[in-house]
């Protein structure tokens, strides 16, 4: 675990890789409109490791999807705010324009690799497709595929495997190889280890840490797991009911949370019991349990 005293000091001057300003996303249903995200401003600078934490329904995944133009068409709409990728305003991009930024500079991995992998195509070909499509400068595709497998520490023989033949941890590595094939400068990881066992999770997190250092890649980790965020991310944004309620250096925010929801969440995440032997709960205004 490494925490610098002043996270991102040298990158402070660098222009943000990704920036949202006052982002608001509405979901339209047949007879009502739900605001899933409001007034969300997030910055990720080159090489940084940033977390967006929140519970289910907080809007964190909607933010991640909006950043890659992956919001469901017709249902979801960005109603205000801007998204900048690499200094470019991408808010009003058309689907074709989005394709030009997806993968590079920004790639994404998801919680459930199986649903993003083609079940009837060998892993090698799936990685090769990503390279051919997003990294046109690469001439020797098979060599690059081998290199990517090595990068995510999968045996070379994996190219012949189908997704169902692999374990959950290996599938997540395949998904990572596909993402890295695009040479991203920022990786958005939406709950990448949630479905994995703790020992496998530890391996994937170590791999991500190593890859970030070797490739100088920034990471935006979307997670509900404060322990993972504490160990992996320099800065954190806490989301609650569609808004960012607190943000700052992870150490600072976790040690001295200013928002009651954040402190409740931290206590609850520690499975702490009070002097009466009761588990800490988040009650009242900041409870996510609705009636």
């Amino acid at each position, binding site marked *: 675990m490494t925490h610098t005293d002043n996270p991102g000091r040298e990158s402070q001057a660098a222009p943000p890789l990704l920036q949202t300003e006052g982002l608001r996303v509405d979901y339209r249903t047949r007879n009502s409109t739900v605001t899933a995200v409001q007034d969300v401003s997030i910055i990720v600078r080159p090489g940084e490791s940033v977390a967006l934490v929140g519970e289910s329904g907080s809007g964190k995944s909607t933010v991640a999807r909006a950043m890659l133009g992956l919001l469901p068409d017709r249902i979801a709409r960005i109603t205000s705010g801007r998204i900048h990728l690499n200094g470019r305003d991408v808010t009003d991009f058309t689907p074709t324009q989005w394709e030009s930024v997806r993968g590079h500079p920004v790639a994404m991995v998801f919680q459930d690799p199986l649903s993003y992998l083609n079940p009837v195509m060998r892993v090698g070909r799936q990685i090769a497709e990503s390279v051919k499509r997003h990294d046109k400068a690469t001439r020797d595709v098979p060599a690059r595929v081998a290199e990517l497998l090595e990068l995510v520490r999968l045996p070379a023989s994996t190219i012949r495997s189908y997704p169902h033949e692999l374990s959950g941890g290996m599938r997540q590595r395949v998904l990572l190889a596909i993402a890295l094939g695009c040479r991203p400068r920022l990786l958005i990881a939406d709950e990448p280890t949630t479905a994995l066992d703790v020992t496998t999770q530890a391996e994937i997190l170590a791999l991500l840490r190593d890859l970030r250092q070797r490739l100088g890649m920034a990471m935006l980790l979307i997670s509900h797991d404060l322990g993972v965020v504490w160990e992996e991310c320099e800065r954190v944004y806490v989301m609650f009911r569609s808004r960012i309620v607190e943000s700052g250096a992870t150490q600072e925010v976790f040690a001295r949370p200013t928002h009651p929801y954040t402190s409740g969440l931290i206590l609850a995440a520690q499975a702490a019991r009070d002097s009466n032997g009761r588990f800490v709960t*988040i009650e009242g205004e900041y409870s996510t349990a609705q009636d």
Partner: protein
Amino acid sequence: MENIPSTSASAGAAQPILVIDSVSKNFRIAGGGTFAAVKSVSLTVNAGEIVALVGESGSGKSTLGRIALGLMQPDEGSVTFDGTRLTGLPAEAFRTLRTRMQPIFQDPTASLNPRKTVRELLMQALWKQPGAGAARCTQLLEDVGLRPAARFIDRYPHELSGGQRQRVSIARSLAMEPRLIIADEPLSGADVSIRGQVLNLMLDIQKKHDVAYLMITHDISIARAFASRVAVMMKGELVEVGPAEEVLSNPQHAYTKRLVAAVPLLGGLTPASAA
């Protein structure tokens, strides 16, 4: 810790409610061969005690839970509940005995019939109890913190939140006045803010009704905070059993060490400094 761990010192006072004795279970694999899911596991849960069974996916912990519940027959060994051997018990006797041992599952949505209201779901569990009616339903709902009960009793499962659904499934288990609840990952679908509420509820129930829990979980921090004893499973074998705090702060087996070390903790943050 309110619960006395069943160490040799207190063994005289502790009354076993569940005794799993040298249980093994093999599964046939498609294409030939067998897979040993549970290998000669012995574990005892005492009356009123909370035991956590931890392990990773594929360790056999859920299979062991299903065998304990009588949902699956062991290939070898036996399960004894409240002094009666379940293995080989005639069906009728088994059903009667089994009502005192109730499961709580991970996904309450899947275990509640979507076409029945909360009242119907509870009455289904109460049908054998003479005189049980609306009053008993109300009391069960209040017991699990769904207050006022009138607000919830006529709802369908889809009209409840995830936490509320889990409470209904707990209420339904309680209807049978169980002595043992076997809870298989009851919290893994729940957000952290709901987790505390469900755990407190389970503690309340333990105190009020004197039930024992066998909690099957992959979550080490919950096992440590909730259980008095913990049993660690790996590849079908029980590798370590003992008082929760002792086993998890000072693991002896290499696997337990690896498991505990892999859990990302809010290191350096004590509950006090976070308050």
